[in-house]
């Protein structure tokens, strides 16, 4: 099971301590949610050098917006929203940058390193997932990342992306079509 559930009371206590300038408390928030952020950011950007920077930006932005966190949503949802927004901004920036110099497709924009895996089969699986994700349109890629890598339901995906459920469902079916086409070529 990927989707972690944390004690909300703990989160609120950690936030309060962080707001009082407690480094360790914020460090605990980072440790607790960094894997979740990594899945979103690296799922969207590939295992690239930019991904780590964007990941850092997510937590820096979180730190500076902690005082605005009202606790209406879970902290994980709040962090996911920041991660999604910053990742989509990064994709836009990179797209703009690359379109200035070369006409390349999205899938050629990032170099990604495949992490060390025990077997060739695992390496191949990882490559398939990364290549398929990077070849997808970002608006579909984000939905696939939320479901496939994070394990969120359609309703949770809609909540995080701040989209109507119907939009998520229609994008899901279009994403499935696109994914089928991409996987046929891999």
């Amino acid at each position, binding site marked *: 099971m990927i989707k972690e559930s944390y004690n909300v009371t703990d989160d609120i206590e950690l936030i309060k301590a962080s707001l009082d300038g407690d480094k360790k408390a914020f460090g605990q928030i980072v440790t607790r949610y960094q894997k979740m*952020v*990594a899945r979103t950011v690296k799922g969207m950007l590939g295992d690239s050098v930019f991904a780590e920077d964007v990941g850092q930006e997510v937590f*820096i932005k979180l730190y500076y917006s902690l005082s605005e966190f009202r606790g209406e949503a879970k902290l994980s949802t709040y962090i996911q929203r920041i991660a999604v927004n910053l990742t989509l901004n990064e994709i836009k920036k990179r797209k703009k940058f690359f379109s200035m110099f070369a006409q390349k497709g999205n899938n050629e924009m990032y170099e990604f390193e495949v992490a060390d895996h025990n077997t060739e089969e695992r390496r191949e*699986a990882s490559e*398939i997932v990364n290549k398929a994700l990077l070849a997808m349109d970002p608006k579909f890629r984000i939905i696939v990342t939320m479901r*496939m890598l994070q*394990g969120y339901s*359609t309703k949770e995906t809609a909540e995080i992306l701040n989209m109507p459920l119907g939009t998520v469902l229609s994008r899901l079916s279009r994403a499935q079509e696109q994914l089928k086409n991409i996987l046929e070529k891999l």
Partner: protein
Amino acid sequence: MNSSEIKKLLISSLDSDADTIEVSGKLQEEGISYNFSKSFGDKVIDRIFSAGVTVIREVEFVKNLNFAFYRIALTGVAAIVVLLISIFLMEGSISFNSFLGLSDSYDESIVCLLTGN
């Protein structure tokens, strides 16, 4: 899991009624997991609690300033081109006088205007 099984799993994960938790769990079992470097947490804390963030903000400011400059410069160039075209259409030429709106004035009339004689 071989590649065709992985592909099937990926496609089925996008069915609206798919068990997403099970799919993500299976993918993780296949070694598809993401994480940042070991020093990630320390780097974040350093960036927040040191002068680093100030530097980053300054760099961001310079980037934004550059971006704004290019936008303003492009708009300015576009406005000048439109102005030149409209002058050409109205006056039939793009002389310095027509650019300054002096096409109907003689030098003497300007001297009179300036000296009051």
